[in-house]
């Protein structure tokens, strides 16, 4: 693909990504917000593909859009929260704190980008982002964190069973 097609595709993915990310924040209905998040994950996967990180893109889709968001939706739907229960009115003070925090973050990111200046992206090898490459890194350089994560997940699973089951 040529550079121009890549740019077009970038915008095709980026604009809806920003829009759905904004939707997550703006939607009053929690289910709508969760759905915006699902759609944001989808467009983000597109960006990952453009960066030739295919594996990451689809891991992201299967884990977040497929599993975690389903869990979110489950909880949100079954709680069937009303506005009163969500306490939207009480949040006005917190809202301003959030705005200030977000603005600070924006300033930080923009200034960091401005300082680094325009740079060409580093060219990557054909092997970049493939299952083979990711696997090699995961099982050599990052073996310890990888195993630690699996222990963490195991703990979470056992914890979930203990919490869910009344008597074992």
């Amino acid at each position, binding site marked *: *693909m*040529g550079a*121009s*097609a890549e740019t077009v595709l970038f915008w095709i993915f980026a604009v809806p990504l920003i829009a759905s990310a904004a939707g997550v924040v703006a939607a009053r*209905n929690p*289910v*709508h917000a969760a*759905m915006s998040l*699902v759609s944001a994950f*989808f467009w983000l996967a597109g960006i990952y593909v453009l960066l030739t990180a*295919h*594996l990451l893109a*689809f*891991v992201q*889709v*299967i884990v977040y*859009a*497929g*599993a975690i*968001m*389903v869990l979110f*939706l*489950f909880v949100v*739907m079954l709680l069937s929260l009303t506005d009163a229960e969500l306490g939207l009115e009480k949040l006005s003070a917190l809202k301003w704190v959030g705005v200030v925090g977000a603005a600070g973050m924006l300033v930080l990111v923009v200034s960091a980008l401005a300082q680094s200046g325009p740079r060409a992206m580093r060219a990557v090898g054909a092997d970049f982002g*493939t*299952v083979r490459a990711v696997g090699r890194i995961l099982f050599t350089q990052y073996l310890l964190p990888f195993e630690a994560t699996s222990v963490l997940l195991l703990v979470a699973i056992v914890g979930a069973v203990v919490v869910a089951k009344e008597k074992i």
Partner: protein
Amino acid sequence: MAQFSFAFPKPGTKKLLVGATLGAALAIPALLAGLLVFLVPMVNKPLLDAFIREKLGHVPATWVGTQWVYAAALFLAGIAMFTFAAITGGIFSWYERRVAARIQSRIGPNRVGVAGFLQWIADAVKLLFKEDLVPGEADAMLFRAAPYFVVAGMTLVLVALPAGQAIVVADLDVGIFYILAVTSFIVVGILLSGWSSNSKWSLFGAIRATAQVVSYEVPAGLAILVPVLMAGTLSTQGLIRAQGGWPWEWFFFRNPAAAVAFFILFISQLAEGNRTPFDLAEAESELVAGYFSEYSGFRFALYFLVEWANLWIIGAVATTLFLGGWQIPGVSAQTWASVRGAGSFPAFGWWALQFVSLGIFAVKTLFLVNVVIWIRWTLPRIRIDQMMNLCWKYLVPAGFAAMLFTLVWQMVATWAPIVEKITALVVFAATVWVTWRFLQQTRKNVSLIAHERVDLSNW
């Protein structure tokens, strides 16, 4: 010997009707095959470049139109795949009803066209003209959006699903993983449709469906790992290239664990496609229609389109992973290369061979589709706790065992390839024997009731 009575078409049928039906029955699949064979391989960049260079007479690197040709090829391939899904889904709907009717000693749809072949078109038109009803208390936006998630989940799978030697829109190096990932959109769609309908039946169905699909993704993933370990790649085309044309070169026969994994995968696919005996989500006798109880018209049609297009996907994924995909017996990779010719744009023989490979793939897939339909009209539905037990207590451990066995097996097979060859022949012979016994028993059962009479007169 059994007596067969067969009359097709029935005497007295109008010639025009016969002509129209036969025309449609031949032209539609031919058109689909043509679309697949000639459009889909063109999405491949080297081929497209060769096309621009040799057929259009431009230099791809400098010509202004190159990008437009790329875009047009992508667009057309997208249209081709979606058309393919829609039309096979439609034809399957007619076919399933005919087969169901045969199983139930009925006639089935036989009014629109000869043998009712045009029924699916009539049904689609009818559904399109129906009112698109949104329940008053429903969350209108999500209610309208939900079917599209389901359709997207189905259509995106087609991108990485091969149908022939070069017939795949994108041969991703994470192909089979991609297929697993995008099917998760179906879950989101189902959950949404159930919740947004604001009906207790829909919610019930949606929760059942979600629990089921999310659970069965685990054994499906484990079963998929077995051929992936054997081939050493996640790419769908790579998986097929690692197999061969003859049955004993298929993964299914080469490794006893793969045979087990095939059944695990097939059961999981039935569950993920909400087919009997796992149709708990749309259990008619319990939940009315499950998560799409409240849908009507076009959106209802979309759910059914997905259900039947999923039949092809179920068959195609299993064929790709275990049954040798499009491999033609006796045609090796060298044959493909020599037929392609020296030029960068392939010769005519190559295209012809593509047709053959598509045919082989379709035959295997349609066989599995038949099995799915046959199961649907034979078995009762299992209960949700039994469904969960089957998944977590039987399929998941069996999947793990198959995966571990395959790891050892691959080491043995690399050390002594003869072991794999002998196993393949033994398993193949065993399968042939089991099939033969099964057919004998079926014949015995039929003759107990029908007394040597096989009536095919209403086909």
